[in-house]
């Protein structure tokens, strides 16, 4: 039986439905992230697990025990907040010891545990400092140690890295993952940062407007998005409007050009569809085998350090079948690795964009979700 189980959770604030039909089973020691835009219900769900919000309906179980109506201070759930929430009147050591003192642990045991945790977060000599004497990253590490001190059954992290700068964020997220693996604690992590969610998690729950859009491993979420929302929210995505030419042969027309795809989709000829393509799948290099292509003109080129991002307006080039070469096309964005020998095209130059026939996803067709599930199974 799963360790943390949320069953049919719904949360309403008056008429507003914040979370609905939320079902999740997390195993002991699993790291699950809730990913979604602001207002999608991820923090509300986390707060329901913590006990700060009561679900309107549904149940929450931790290790088989129903905690749906249990007060937050009786759940044995540790929480780390975005704003650290360290007690400013207490030293670092007192902050970490707080949960143990509440539980009336013997003082020698408290001292030992505090020393262990200070060692774990690499701040062994900062026990006597006050929170305001630490940097943001150090404060958040103390907050993590404080949440772990009393050995909670579940650790909840509510956008813990949002207030930190980019470099510290990356370093600290690796530390969080390392500590979580070391302690084997079941963890739920809320973030709107896809990179964080994908790099940290065993599984990711993508949420939108109070609903679960998809639950899966980072690999599944990124490569096989189940819905148009997941496809567009996770990673950068080119979404091109087109129409079905022949579904049985995988042919779709985009701005007068026909591409051929091997992923299954269904629909009648002429039916509008959207084709989703990751920038890293597309290339300017000529890849005839197993690839399909679009022709267009370079709209702009952006240097991003290790990558060069090229935007190509497709449909307006001379190779566009059916196009008259004058109407503006849709834009395909692609990334090329920066290397000294890279031939960067000039703006206005006509180029062909090739991509694997099994690369793009066809959105808005009835059979799309089924095909995604099949693909995940195959993977």
């Amino acid at each position, binding site marked *: 039986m799963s360790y943390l189980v949320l069953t049919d959770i719904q949360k309403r604030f008056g008429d507003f439905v914040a979370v609905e039909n939320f079902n999740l089973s997390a195993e002991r020691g699993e790291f699950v992230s809730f990913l979604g835009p602001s207002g999608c219900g991820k923090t509300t769900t986390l707060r329901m697990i913590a006990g700060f919000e009561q679900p309107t309906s549904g149940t929450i179980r931790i290790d088989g025990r129903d905690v749906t109506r249990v007060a937050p201070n009786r759940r044995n759930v540790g929480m780390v907040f975005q704003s*650290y929430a360290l007690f400013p009147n207490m030293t670092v050591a007192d902050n970490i010891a707080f949960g143990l003192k509440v539980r009336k642990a013997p003082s020698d045991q408290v001292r030992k545990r505090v020393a262990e945790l200070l060692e774990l977060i690499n701040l062994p000599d900062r026990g006597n400092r006050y929170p305001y004497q630490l940097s943001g990253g150090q404060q958040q590490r103390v907050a993590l140690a404080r*949440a772990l001190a009393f050995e909670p059954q579940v650790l909840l992290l509510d956008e813990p890295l949002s207030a930190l700068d980019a470099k510290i964020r990356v370093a600290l997220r690796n530390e969080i993952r390392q500590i979580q693996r070391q302690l084997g604690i079941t963890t739920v992590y809320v973030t709107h940062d896809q990179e964080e969610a994908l790099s940290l998690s065993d599984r990711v729950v993508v949420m939108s407007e109070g609903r679960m859009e998809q639950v899966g491993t980072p690999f599944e979420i990124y490569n096989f998005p189940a819905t148009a929302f997941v496809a567009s929210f996770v990673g950068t995505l080119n979404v091109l409007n087109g129409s079905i030419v022949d579904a049985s042969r995988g042919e779709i027309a985009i701005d007068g050009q026909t591409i051929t795809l091997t992923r299954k989709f269904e629909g009648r000829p002429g039916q509008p569809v959207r084709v989703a393509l990751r920038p890293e799948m597309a290339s300017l290099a000529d890849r005839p085998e197993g690839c399909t292509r679009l022709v267009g003109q370079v709209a702009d080129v952006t240097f991003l350090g290790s990558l060069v991002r090229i935007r190509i307006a497709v449909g307006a080039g001379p190779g566009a079948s059916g196009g008259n070469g004058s109407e503006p096309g849709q834009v395909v964005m692609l990334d090329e690795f920066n290397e000294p020998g890279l031939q960067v095209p000039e703006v206005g130059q006509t180029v062909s964009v090739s991509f694997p026939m099994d690369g793009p996803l066809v959105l808005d067709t009835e059979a799309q979700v089924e095909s995604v599930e099949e693909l995940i199974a195959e993977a």
Partner: protein
Amino acid sequence: MSSAGEGRRGFGAWWAWLVVFLGILYFFVPLIAAAEFSLRACAPPNQPCSTPDFSAYANTFADSQFFSTLTFSFVVGLTTIAVSLLIIVPTAYWVRLRMPRLRPVVEFITLLPFVIPPVVLVFGLIRIYSRPPLLITATNLGSVGLLVAAYVVLSFPYMYRAVDAGLAAMDVRVLTEAAQSMGAGWRKILWSVIFPNLRTAALSGAFLTLAIVVGEFTIGNYMAPYGFGPYLSLLGRDKIFEPAAVSLISFGLTWLAMAVIALVGRGPRGTRVQVAGAR
């Protein structure tokens, strides 16, 4: 253009210094005058003394009533502060945490002492609590208890605003939830997290309350005429130089209390505390 700008800046600086000078005169001339007058207690009366005469101060300190009334008022003041904090802090905390919509109502209630004159309050209290079934003023302890209760009401506007400002400066909800997630109940949260972080705000409110209670006359005169306020009034009626001396002593005590607040409210190691949030 540039010289005109400099001229305007020069005029502004001159004007600012004039305002500061007038402010200094406004605050210090009465004090200096009172000090000068309090040192004239030599014969013949109302004539400048060849050397300052400190007998008004000596008489004040020699008067046992000065110390007894001052001690009584301080004890009543400290009790008022304790009761007021016990009522106001949990109320303001709960309103901020769980019932923010009630804030205007609570603010209005705490402002009532500004609207209702103390004489109305004291007569109302005496009428209600001096006859059965609520005959509280029959005993000395009962009267003093009622006096403290009246002063608690009188302190509401100052104490509530100070505490509310202190709560506004910290992220009450997040600190509470952090403590809850670690297993703390409401008493532990209030005692270990909220009260300590309200230290400066509570001290400000406490100081204002103490200043009001120690010098209060109207309520004290009717309920416990052995307080410092009624004593000051009697002194003004019966003596010439001593009231000036006593007012200067009170002023000194006030400054002492402010210095204590400044020292105690500085936070750990003399640095202002960050209550919550990113740095």
